[in-house]
């Protein structure tokens, strides 16, 4: 199952694509990432991640929504696929089940 593994950055991007619903395209994803995680990936890095996610079948895309500031060029919108959703669920389950096993000790003095 090596190919369906999600990298940390990929996971974030996939989550954001899901949460943005119909308005998930590169710039909006970039802005959302910046707002939520305080990191500011280059447009190249973001496209690279989106490209990988699409290849792995986690997201699908269509074109549309040209605007003036883009010089009349179209955007590529992304949607999360059922397969992508399943992958996120798996990751979430894995995480939360592991989290439950943490002993309930308070780390005071931190």
């Amino acid at each position, binding site marked *: 199952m090596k190919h369906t593994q999600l990298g940390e950055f990929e996971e974030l991007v996939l989550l954001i694509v899901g949460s943005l619903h119909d308005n998930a395209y590169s*710039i909006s994803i970039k802005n959302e990432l910046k707002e939520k995680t305080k990191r500011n990936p*280059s*447009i190249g*890095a973001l496209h690279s991640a989106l490209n990988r996610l699409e290849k792995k079948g986690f997201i699908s895309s269509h*074109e549309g929504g040209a605007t003036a*500031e*883009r010089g009349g060029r*179209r955007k590529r919108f992304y949607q999360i696929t059922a397969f992508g959703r399943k992958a996120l669920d798996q990751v979430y389950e894995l995480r939360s089940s592991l989290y439950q096993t943490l002993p309930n000790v308070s780390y005071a003095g931190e």
Partner: protein
Amino acid sequence: MQGNDHSKHPPRWPDKFLGWFCHEEHLEILRGDVYELYAERIAEHRKWKANLLFYLDIIGLCRPFVFKQKSQTPNTIAMFKNYLKVTYRNFVNQKVYSGLNAIGLAIGLACTILICIYINDELSFDKFHSKSDRIYRVVEKFESEGVGEHSASLPFPTGPALKNDFERQVEGVVRFFNFQSPTLALANKVADKGFNEPNIFFADSTFFNVFDFELIAGDKQSALAEPNSVLITRSMAKKYFTDEDPMGKTLEFQGNHHLLVTGVLEDTPKNAHFKFDFIVSFSSLKKNYGGGYPTTWYWNPCWTYIVLEENTGKEEFEAQLEPFVLKYFPDFIKEDIELQLQPIEDIHLHSKLDYEITGNSDIKNVYIFGLVAIFVLIIASINFINLSTARANKRAKEVGVRKSLGSAKSQLISQFIFESIVLTFVSLILAIAIVALVLPAFNQLTEKAVPLSILLEPAFFFGLIGAGLGIGLLAGFYPAFVLSSFKTILVLKNSHLKTSGLNFRRVLVTSQFAISIMLIIGTFIVLNQLNYLQNKDAGFSDEDVVMIPVLQSPMGQHYENFKNTALQSTHIHSLTAVEEIVGAKSQVGNYKFEGMEQSKPFPRFNVRHDFTSTMNIPLVAGRAYDQSIQTDDSLALIVNETLVKSMNWSIDEAVGKRFEYRGEMKGQIVGVVKDYNFASKHHPIAPLVLTLNTRPGAFNLFIKYVAVKIDGTQVQNALSDLEQAWVSVLPQRPFDFFFLDDRLNDSYKSEQKLSSVTLIFSILAILVACLGLFGLATFSLEQRTKEIGVRKVLGISTAQIMVLLSKEFMFLIAVAFIISIPLAYYSLNEWLNGFAFRIGIEVWPFIVAGLITFIISMLTVSYHAYRASSINPANTLKYE
């Protein structure tokens, strides 16, 4: 910033680059993305920052999945990875040589980048106006038989008459005027701040129709429309009003004229050929001239700029100026007058007229700097080639192994070229770091304000990348061929190869040193010429002379009073008043001497009594102006020797010759002074007329400075006595002065700049050349360790080893020296011929340059020779 649409557009080149490498499939989306990002950023950041981020975005998009060709098989990529690894290992393995190599090239590149920045800035002068290709300055050539003036300024009525007569061809005219005064007084009475300002101009209200200077506050249409309006620059607003809003405030001009601030200008860009701090509306002048403008066509104090209509050519327009001159100029001078157009973009580098607003630069210096940049780059590249080739021998085994494993020649060549390009780019990055470090100092030296971000301009950015690729290719080419042509069996059998390509390398080293020696000789001669210009006896004494600007001040009424008060001090020897800075420039007047049919323009200098004694100018015949002879003021003239010679008189004949001035005043020559340099030593000494002018009104136009000879050992006391005398007659005016010799040295600023730049760069050039020599010596030593070992066993002395090892290099330097002599002599002689007063080329700069090169390279090589002689031969001989 003009043209809003354009300024919102991202830089063109990276955009094209994206189109070049990006696959069709992704192009539309990606381009849309970067455009959108750019639009967002330009709204909140400065333009350069948005541009920078745009570049970074595009570079960040260089990812395998967007590339056009998918033909790059994993195999070739792996191969390049391997090349990179080998390059890295090689670099680390031979740290010293690779380091020398990279640093040498980095220094060379840094020099070149700096000089390119300088040249780029010099060429950018006055190009920031949107109409700059149609703006011309009209200039006046007023000469008869080579004597007269070539003036940058024109009579008052010329501008309006041009507009009136050629309405269809002239789009706009603007005149500048400053009373021909070095400084004018301004004051903010409310804050009690007053200064003498050097950069005040009166300008027509059409100022903004012609030029694109930025107005921060106020309205371009109306700012200069009313009399008594003034525009001030941002820094002057700070100086006079600190943090207050200057709009609507009042400044007092010359103590009697109130000016209303109607606008704030951005400071003059550093690449404009003149600098202003204040622009006063032209109509304010009417008050000074009885309600109108001066109507004379003789006096020419107005710098006049015109914009031609788009379809009007320069030659076409100039052709109409001859009838124009005949129509307007007075009869007695119109034959001697020619009006010409000077493109504004050419003024900074090509114009050397009389009465320039400020001194200009010289295109010659741009050429010289360019040549120096090329020289330094050649030296550095030669180093690079030399060291790479020399290192090649170390790689012989690697080549042998690669070949026997089936590497094709072309693959080896591309490997070595790849290595060389990688190393070049490492040097390039180092060079940019060096430039970033020294740019502030360089800006100070050259009086510019170029930001580092200039390197992001497309021309520079791609120029740098191109240069990196070019040098890498060129430098890698030769070693690549040498290396790839090694015979496989031979290199695998013998651990050492005979040094190949030595002859080629000899040629390179020789040319490197020839260039270094030429640069050193050049530096000596430039320094010497500068020294000569500044220190050669100019025929008058400029030491301990204090100049006080007095034009347009009430000094006229108080001159005698001031003179008497000042001369009571024992520290003040003598005092006079003059028209211009002595030794810098003169004005022109029309005189008709005995034997002439018609009056001719002669350089003329208005003075007061005691001029010749204050300036220490000897008289060769006749007498100086005498206080006790009343008629001296109008009926007497003093001339110089050259004038006497040009009239074909003998010195003794000259005294008593008659002259006519303005066809009415008829007088006699009463004295002849020895020739002195009344203009800078760029010009030969021309005929000169010294005329006495004692009218108090002369201080409005003809007398600009009081010149005072003081006791050089008591400067402080003399100055405070002078100030006291000043305050006693003009208590309300600020006391300002400068020393004559300091100001005269400024006339040679362009030569000073040239000499400091050549000095710095020739030191760097020889440094880089020595780095190369050091590297080469190391290799030649390594190849001969065994030989030296054997010789030592047989009893060679240290001195003999020195001779053995340095012999070859010394020979090369000797050849370089011989080659450089005629080249240096010829080019420097050409340069010196541009000066009216020049030094002869002596032998010593050549000998000293040769010796310096010889000694420095001797030191470099002998370090190795010494090391070689101290190696125990047992160590070098045991591996057999």
